[in-house]
């Protein structure tokens, strides 16, 4: 084994990536786990915002629609770094000023909670648009039939609209999820050590840039492949009952 690695010139890399110190493997894995934790929190939160936001944008009153338009435009447009800096540092600053004015001490705000919030709010803005497009793609007759039988809006959404739109939404949502896993890199700013920061630290400490960047790439790719399988199931489920376009290709 060692010999093979040696001949391939990979022995050095293998040592650097080994799971026990001085190898960095465990650090990378820990970073990955942290990334996934934050990403799922943010993605879930974003999905919730997205669902209600999409409905608000489609069926809400003029004020709600305007507010949501501002939300989606501004949040999507402003770089996440800016959002995190403002929401975390300016936010804690304001809270601290307020609390010291009232005679209390400093308040510590966890960077992770802030991170999930910020990323979730960002994801929400994108989800709104993905879901809005998907809802619009559902043939109106499907939703009308539900309404005609007296389904209340929430049930219509849950039983008819969501299943029917899933096939349109999954590709966009899968993209968002992958983006979420990578956007956790921004949380380095609030002192959160996830995969990207761990990789950069390892890379610049050892100067083995290629090794660590490729290792991180490999980890991300694994996440993607696994998510691909899961989203593939979801999409297959969502497409049940739709005749395949592959058949009768004449």
């Amino acid at each position, binding site marked *: 084994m060692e010999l093979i690695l040696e001949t391939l010139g990979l022995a050095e890399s293998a040592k650097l990536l080994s799971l026990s110190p001085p190898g960095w493997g465990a650090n990378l894995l820990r970073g990955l786990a942290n990334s996934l934790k934050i990403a799922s929190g943010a993605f879930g939160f974003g999905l919730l915002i997205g669902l209600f936001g999409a409905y608000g944008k489609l069926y809400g009153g003029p004020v709600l629609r305007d507010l949501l338009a501002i939300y989606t435009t501004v949040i999507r447009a402003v770089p996440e770094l800016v959002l995190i800096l403002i929401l975390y540092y300016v936010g804690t600053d304001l809270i601290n000023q307020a609390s010291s004015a009232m005679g209390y001490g400093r308040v510590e705000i966890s960077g992770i909670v802030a991170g999930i919030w910020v990323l979730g709010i960002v994801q929400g803005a994108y989800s709104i*648009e993905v879901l*809005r497009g998907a809802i619009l793609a559902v043939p109106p007759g499907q939703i009308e039939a539900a309404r005609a039988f007296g389904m209340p809006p929430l049930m219509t959404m849950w039983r008819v609209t969501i299943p029917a739109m899933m096939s349109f939404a999954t590709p*966009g949502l*899968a993209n968002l999820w992958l983006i979420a896993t990578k956007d956790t890199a921004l949380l380095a700013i609030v002192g959160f050590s996830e995969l990207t920061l761990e990789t950069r630290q390892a890379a610049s400490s050892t100067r083995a840039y290629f090794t660590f960047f490729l290792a*991180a*790439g490999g980890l991300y790719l694994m996440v993607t492949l696994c998510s691909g399988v899961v989203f593939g199931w979801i999409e297959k489920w969502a497409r049940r009952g739709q005749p395949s376009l592959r058949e009768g290709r004449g």
Partner: protein
Amino acid sequence: MTTLKSLMLPHRIVMMALFAALVLWCAVTLRWDWIPKYAPLAVEGIWTTIWIMAVTTVLGFLLAVPLGLAQAIGPWYLSIPARSFCTVIRGTPLLLQIWLLYYGLGSLFPQFPWIRSSELWPYLRQAWPYAVLALTLSYAGYEGEVMRGAFSGVAKGQLETAKSFGMRRFTMFRRIWLPQAIRNVLPTLGGETILQLKATPLVATITVIDIYAVSSRVRSDTFIVYEPLLLLAVVYMVIAGLITLAFKRFEAQLPR
């Protein structure tokens, strides 16, 4: 006329007033003395951001269409490569892709003297071709996935009709399939395009200076934290606003 009227709704007036107050507050209390010195750089940076964004989204989308189609209905020898491409692109950080292209692939070229003496060398020596390539591939990868869903989502009957009238496959694709697919994912595409806008700063890692890099420079020169970022946010908001507007226009033209 109607647009003016639509702005005069009460809640919109309130919002505009709030916004004006915010702008005023920022203008008065924050530090803006660095602007004159960096203005020319910023203009260049904005231009770089815009053209890279525009070029890579257009090229990327042109690539995404065949990628999506190949995955949706292609035979295995097309769909498997297409799927693998999209998975790898979506599955690895863009930073890594840019980095590998520039420092990996790019640094191989100089080792061949005949490349160094060729006509292409002045371009291969530059960083922007790698930036454009990396961002194009990235957009193509993400949008290839989106278009796959869009193509498979078009109702079968719509295509059968086209076939039954003897439409050539390409005509059917161009006239029926693609328009309906795009209609279904336009909001998603709009979002992805804005994501692409925000992915452009990564080109700074390979020495292409966009507006984001300019703002970073201001921050490191002066250690001012928020003001350059606020201005950056405004620039991005304007560009994103334009993108949204363009997509809205486009969406309005397409019927439901």
